[in-house]
């Protein structure tokens, strides 16, 4: 049934799996921020951030429908499969983006609203339209878009951007390259066919694996910043050390694996682990913060 999009197709345009991570990290930013926020306004804020992320995802799918049709991972998305037209996706994405920014600005403050607008612009324009097809550094710079949600959550409560929220940003920013390059290592034929210059297609596997390891070390070090700067306690520090060490071990194993089949398998393991890593580290940071603030367990 051409042109008869189901409700599920519109939901798929929002990239719900990516949205989970956005929502979770935004919630952490919102919860750990000093100050208070009305619980209903907090829920509305998270909803706005989620819808903003969904809107930018729809704009991404609108622009990338040509390359999505080529890659096996994305060929069944609503636009390349013909269930939703490009125009519908564009209007859907624009409406969601505008309403989410306006509502967040009205509900909380215009620093948070402005940051959400910038995040959407960064993902849809800077990453999707400009960087993605031009440079192998696409996901390094574009990764900033995925790193903004905790800053937006923090700003929704405080109306400012401060060091703590920037550290949360930095952790996600440095997490993005190993995460996406691991995916690119075992899906590189897909990216190559679509002409997307992902790192393995441009500089080769060996260099990509070295860069993954370097970013993983930087990530593990950045995850120690909350402890070094004095806004995380022992509970978080223990989790950050263990999970960061495990991440480096995965990256090291990948670096030492030369056989193509084994390398793809190790890259997939690293990709899966990286998803758990971010959830665990952010959950630990939030729990540690709540323990310190409300149960008196100081670091």
């Amino acid at each position, binding site marked *: *049934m051409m042109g*008869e*999009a*189901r*409700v599920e197709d*519109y939901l798929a345009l929002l990239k719900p799996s990516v949205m989970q991570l956005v929502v979770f990290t935004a919630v952490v930013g919102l919860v750990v921020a000093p100050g208070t926020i*009305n619980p*209903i*306004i907090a829920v*509305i804020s998270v*909803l706005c951030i989620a819808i903003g992320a969904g809107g930018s995802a729809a704009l991404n799918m609108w622009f990338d429908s040509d390359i999505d049709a080529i890659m096996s991972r994305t060929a069944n998305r609503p636009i390349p499969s013909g269930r939703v037209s490009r125009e519908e996706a564009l209007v859907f994405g624009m409406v969601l983006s505008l*309403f989410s920014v306006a*509502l967040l600005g*009205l*509900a909380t403050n215009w620093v948070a609203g402005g940051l959400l607008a910038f995040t959407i612009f960064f993902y849809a324009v800077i990453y999707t339209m400009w960087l993605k097809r031009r440079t192998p550094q696409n996901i390094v710079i574009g990764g900033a878009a995925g790193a903004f949600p905790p800053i937006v959550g923090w700003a929704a409560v405080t109306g400012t951007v401060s060091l703590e929220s920037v550290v949360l940003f930095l952790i996600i920013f440095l997490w993005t390259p190993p995460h996406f390059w691991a995916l690119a290592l075992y899906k590189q034929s897909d990216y190559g066919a679509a002409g997307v210059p992902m790192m393995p297609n441009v500089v080769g596997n060996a260099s990509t694996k070295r860069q993954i390891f370097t970013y993983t070390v930087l990530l593990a070090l950045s995850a120690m910043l909350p402890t070094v700067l004095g806004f995380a306690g022992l509970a978080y520090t223990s989790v950050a050390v263990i999970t960061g060490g495990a991440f480096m071990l995965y990256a090291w194993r990948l670096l030492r694996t030369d056989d193509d089949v084994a390398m793809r398998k190790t890259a997939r393991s690293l990709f899966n682990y990286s998803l758990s890593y971010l959830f665990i580290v952010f959950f630990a940071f939030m729990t540690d913060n709540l323990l310190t603030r409300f149960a008196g367990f100081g670091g």
Partner: protein
Amino acid sequence: MSAPDEIRHVEIEAPEVAAARAKVRRRRSIALAIALALFAMTFYALTIIKMGPALFDRAL
């Protein structure tokens, strides 16, 4: 004698396809109605929270 072009190319939809299409449209309309209702409720709640008791503090 052949039929005019605009008549000749009309495709008649099978009843089951038409029914499926109508079902999809109905579900989409319900989802849109729910989204609009939630949006209105959000603004209502936001107004009450933001303005609080001051909302009712006016001359009658």
